[in-house]
């Protein structure tokens, strides 16, 4: 492997690297399928009869949601499995755990996908599969929890921010996953206000938990690229981590302004407000100012992806602040403006950060391979981000149109007809996002696929 002066000594190989790569390949397959089904779902807005009897919107949407969520946490987990031995300086505590987790997750995913095609639903937002399969997800996370805490055995007095962030993400995923299934008890299921409030609470905090995993990964990659260990050990870094944790715990409430829960639930959420995205923006800003050109050029792909994530953080921050103001939230909630925020976050921020992690690993492992695909990778990054800008704008515009229709008391069907130009725009730009990201997915899959051992020379 070639060495470069800008490269930090992270190239030691560990015996679980192949399994980590398999995990990343699985995450890329989730993204590939999720993008295709998302594109199908978008086209079904324009052509309601498209594949209606094969994969209806009622099936395409939950499949898309499940697969893209799986991409986010599986890519974060795969990266974590790759980084853990390097951070700890030793092999994973439970090496077979990674294979156990991979198999458990694969089996659960297959069962979930089959249940959707078979028309069996749990009917809860985000987790639309039958509730029994939630147990498979919980079980599949256990090996990573064991490996994280027993491999690192972190000293929390001196641990860098990304270790706090990863640990928090892992623990809170389990807490919020359990909370999201409280509805199976009659105490929650029998009271619609409690059920809706707790569902928003669990899901809002769960998004915060995977953001912790993704942001932790982003911060670790930044540290490796810049070589500056300061930001992830600075007081500012910890301050923003704790601000993020406070948001994870309490800022879900801006989703519940319209639910008639007690007023103090809304007051707390408004006071906490949305500052989570600002946190990473601040850290990236610090990191960028200390980045040396040599290192930036060496990891140019990861760097470019991180810069795009930075742009989306600021755009989404503006939108998040606006829609968390109760007077505006009253109108924007339940419109495509909420979707714009979700898409900006999952594609613009999470996907760009996770792709940065994937290409950081690839560059470290297979520099020549990455360089040979350099033009295509940059084209993919550019296409997906330009298309996302159009997609995001059309969703916001569609939301504004719905607000206007609602104020004018226009019927749903009339509003849908008026929205068609925006639906066309987000469908076509959504297809372009898919095309751009697929370029990255195919190259990453190609480079991650293990090369067969050379055949022994014939006698």
């Amino acid at each position: 492997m070639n060495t470069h002066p800008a490269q930090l000594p992270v190239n030691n190989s560990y015996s679980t690297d192949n399994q980590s790569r398999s995990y990343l390949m699985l995450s890329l397959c989730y993204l590939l399928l999720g993008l295709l089904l998302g594109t199908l779902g978008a086209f079904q807005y324009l052509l309601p009869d498209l594949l209606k009897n094969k994969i209806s919107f009622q099936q395409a949407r939950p499949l898309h949601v499940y697969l893209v969520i799986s991409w986010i946490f599986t890519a974060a987990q795969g990266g974590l499995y790759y980084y853990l031995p390097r951070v700890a300086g030793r092999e994973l505590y439970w090496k077979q755990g990674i294979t156990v987790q991979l198999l458990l997750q694969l089996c659960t995913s297959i069962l979930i996908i089959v249940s959707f095609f078979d028309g069996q639903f749990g009917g809860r937002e985000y987790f639309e599969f039958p509730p029994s399969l939630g147990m498979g997800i919980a079980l599949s996370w256990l090996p990573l929890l064991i490996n994280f805490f027993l491999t690192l055995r972190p000293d929390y007095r001196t641990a860098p921010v990304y270790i706090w962030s990863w640990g928090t993400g892992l623990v809170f995923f389990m807490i919020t996953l359990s909370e999201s299934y409280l509805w199976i008890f009659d105490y929650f299921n029998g009271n619609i206000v409690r059920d809706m409030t707790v569902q928003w609470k669990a899901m809002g905090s769960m998004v915060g938990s995977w953001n912790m995993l993704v942001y932790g990964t982003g911060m670790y990659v930044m540290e490796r690229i810049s070589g500056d260990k300061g930001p992830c050990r600075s007081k500012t870094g910890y301050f923003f981590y704790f601000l993020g944790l406070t948001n994870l715990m309490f800022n879900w409430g801006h989703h519940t302004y319209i639910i008639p829960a007690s007023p103090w639930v809304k007051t707390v959420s408004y006071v906490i407000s949305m500052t989570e995205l600002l946190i990473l923006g601040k850290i990236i800003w610090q990191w960028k100012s200390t980045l040396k050109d040599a290192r930036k050029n060496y990891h140019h792909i990861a760097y470019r992806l991180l810069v795009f994530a930075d742009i989306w953080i600021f755009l989404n921050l503006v939108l998040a602040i606006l829609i968390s103001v109760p007077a505006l939230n009253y109108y924007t909630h339940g419109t495509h403006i909420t979707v714009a925020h979700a898409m900006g976050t999952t594609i613009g921020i999470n996907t760009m950060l996770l792709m940065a992690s994937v290409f950081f690993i690839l560059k470290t492992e297979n520099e020549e391979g990455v360089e040979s695909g350099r033009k295509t990778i940059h084209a993919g990054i550019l296409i997906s981000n330009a298309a996302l800008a159009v997609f995001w704008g059309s969703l916001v515009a569609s939301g504004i149109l719905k607000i206007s229709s609602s104020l004018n008391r226009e019927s749903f069907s009339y509003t849908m007809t008026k929205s068609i130009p925006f639906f066309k725009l987000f469908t076509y730009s959504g297809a372009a996002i898919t095309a751009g990201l697929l370029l990255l997915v195919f190259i990453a899959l190609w480079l991650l696929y293990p090369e067969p051992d050379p055949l022994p020379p014939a006698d």
Partner: protein
Amino acid sequence: MTKIYIFSALLISYFAYSLAVYTRGTDETASGPLPGKTEVTLGKRLYQEKNCSSCHQLYGLGGYLGPELTTAFSDPNRGELYLRAFLQNGGPRMPKFDFTEKEINSIISYLEYIDHSAISYRKK
């Protein structure tokens, strides 16, 4: 050590706040009258099993392909007959589910229950 103390304080606050939300924050009085518990429970189960939330929203949770249903029952432009017609026949975008009369009544009861609870939503 300060970091560990801050983390512990936040964690305790989180669990205490969760408990408050599960109890006093969302007590029964806020949810309005219940129009027949068994029917509502069956209606809710059907709403979930048919994955209605992929296209419809209740309190902002759900998809956007179909109309929002939180106050559909009391909406002067929609109401019970409108809901019944779509549940019986489907629509251009909505599948025909072949519900029985009892199932249709249950789903409508569930939507009526939601509607009763929508105190702050109705102003919208």
